[in-house]
């Protein structure tokens, strides 16, 4: 049996890692909520943003957290034009089409990264990567604490954008009633692209938060995106608070079950919760539709 300190530490670790999961899930859930597509390219785009952060550090000497400020607009633009120029036109309006296009896109991006950066793993060395914040008996990893804070703030900002701005209103209108929205003069194609862009920009922040303690190789994103999919369904597809709470919950559950069952079986905890939620509340924790 573990001492209470160890258990508490594992749970806090889970909470902090869960916050970054949540951030990745936020983008995914937003895109699903509005475009009604499951974006299979999400993982590959996360990898792209991690590479951009790495490039910022390696070639421009930027701190990964500072790099976020540059990578976020870049990813926003990438997301916007991907939807506007590739996903939208190529899918020809069919949902199955979009699904396949995003899947194809993920393969193309992954292989472009492989061609450009080969399979070497890249890491960023920072002074604070090994820093810990002692909190009573706990040793909290500095990058993780920052990750938690930034994720929660980002979720709050996203909620504000959706609820307090014109583009937020337009996004919500399109999500609820596409035809109606276009009848009142909302440019649906633009709103789609904006949504995809915001979702992709979330990945830039996640990438910046991950890089100080993680590594990037062309397949890195996949490790995070599977868990993000789970969070999206768990929290209720398309729900922002759902993604945040779902992410934190999954992080804690994963930490607890890996501590007691081992990391290999730790995944069981995630999917057990997942199945239970689907059985008793199929719309997810915060799902309305």
């Amino acid at each position, binding site marked *: 049996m*573990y*001492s209470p300190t*160890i258990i508490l*530490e*594992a749970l806090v*670790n889970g909470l902090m*890692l869960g916050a970054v999961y949540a951030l990745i899930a936020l983008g995914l859930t937003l895109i699903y909520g509005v475009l009604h597509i499951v974006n299979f390219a999400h993982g590959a785009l996360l990898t792209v943003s991690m590479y951009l952060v790495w490039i910022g550090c390696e070639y421009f000497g930027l701190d990964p957290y500072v790099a976020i400020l540059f990578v976020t607009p870049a990813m926003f633009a990438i997301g916007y034009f991907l939807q506007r120029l590739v996903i939208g036109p190529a899918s020809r309006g069919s949902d199955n089409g979009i699904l396949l296009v995003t899947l194809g896109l993920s393969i193309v991006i992954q292989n472009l990264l*492989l061609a450009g950066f*080969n*399979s*070497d*793993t890249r*890491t960023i*060395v920072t002074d604070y*990567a*090994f*820093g*810990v914040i002692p909190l009573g008996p706990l*040793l909290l*990893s500095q990058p993780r604490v920052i990750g938690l804070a930034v994720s929660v703030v980002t979720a709050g900002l996203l909620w504000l954008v959706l609820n307090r701005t014109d583009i937020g209103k337009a996004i919500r209108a399109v999500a609820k009633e596409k035809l109606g929205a276009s009848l009142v003069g909302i440019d649906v194609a633009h709103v789609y692209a904006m949504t995809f862009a915001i979702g992709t920009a979330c990945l830039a922040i996640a990438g910046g938060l991950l890089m100080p*303690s*993680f*590594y990037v*190789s062309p*397949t*890195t994103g*996949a*490790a*995070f995106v599977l*868990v993000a999919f789970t969070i999206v369904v768990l929290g209720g597809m398309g729900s922002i608070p759902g993604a945040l709470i779902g992410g934190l919950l999954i992080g804690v559950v994963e*930490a607890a079950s*890996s*501590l007691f069952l*081992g*990391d*290999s079986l*730790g*995944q069981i905890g995630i999917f057990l919760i997942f199945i239970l939620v689907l059985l008793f509340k199929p719309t997810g924790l915060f799902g309305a539709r």
Partner: protein
Amino acid sequence: MKTLTNSFSRRTVLKAGGAAATILAAPGLVRAQAPIVKIGLVQPITGAFAGDGDLARIGAEYAVKEINDAGGIKALGGAKIQLLIGDSRSNAEAGAQATEQLKTDGAVIVVGGFASGIAMTASQAAARYELPFIIDGAVSDGLMTRGLKSVFRFGPSFGASADVALKNLVAINDAAGKAAKTVAIVHEDGLLGSGLAKLMQQRLPPLGFQIVETISHPTPARDMSNVVLRLRSLNPDLIIPSMYFNEFVLLARTMQQQRVKPKGIYALFGGAASSYKFVSEFPDAAEGVMDVNHWGDPKNPTNAKLMEAVKATGKFYAYNTPINYSLIQIAAQAIEMAKSTESGALVEALAKNEFDSGVMPYGRTKFDATGQNVNALPLNTQVQGGDIKVVYPEQFAQSKPKFPANG
């Protein structure tokens, strides 16, 4: 209209290129009088293992240049070696295709392989033509139990390496007054890690070690904090990791952050502890880590030259370079001895003779009836002072093992 223009310009470019190639090749045609012997190298030049394939290529090319500069293959009238490179694209199917292509292009011996899965199919393809194939550092025991007459392995098998690793561990631990008594095994839950974990669970207790915990984790792992928390609460003397590079780096970094300092970290084919990339990026996390792995003989002056050659390309030296350098040397010796490039004669020469092992610490290379080099063995390396040092066995050691590492 647009496509038409494009295809025109492409054709023009091709024409110009073709013309240029002819002009450039012409002097070569006039001079190409000396006979040529083609040796094939199958390595992952692209794909996930591209970095390893590239290091192997550097070693092989170095050997070819050395042999050619020294007058080529004397038994064949000073024939020059031409290295043909087959790209296994980091997967097993392409490994077989690349070997077929090398055969078609006229390779008389093929060497390489790298990963066990690729070595398996590539050597199988060679065996169909009875083309001699010498496997490099792919360790799977299954490679040499197939009864393929023309397939040889230069490096040690996994089983033999595990024996060496355990024997050396006991020796190092005894020399330190049995400093380590408790062991935690951390392994990835795939074939590689589980296999090693099982072996360690069987073999360590009779040697006087108490296994306090066996922790498995998935690949890729997103996080190692829970593994490290468990290690912190168990506080084992020795940690035996068995996982791929990325996970090992994550583990070592998390251990450093969480202030977990065991007396030793002892890996078998851990990669990371014999990786200059890891050492240069995370010197603090890497310090003191021990690994049992393929490694060039540090006392061989050519090994130092290979290290320089790798460094000159801006890459990090790893075992792929010395092992493939040595493979080309062995292939050349076999051709000298066979005085022929005919497959049957070469296979016979490889099976019957002893060879100089190039820069590998194998003494004389001698292939047994299964094709396994009986004198192959891995070395113990340790990260010391930001450098990788061979610490055991003594005849190859550059410095003494520092154990306990955090004493």
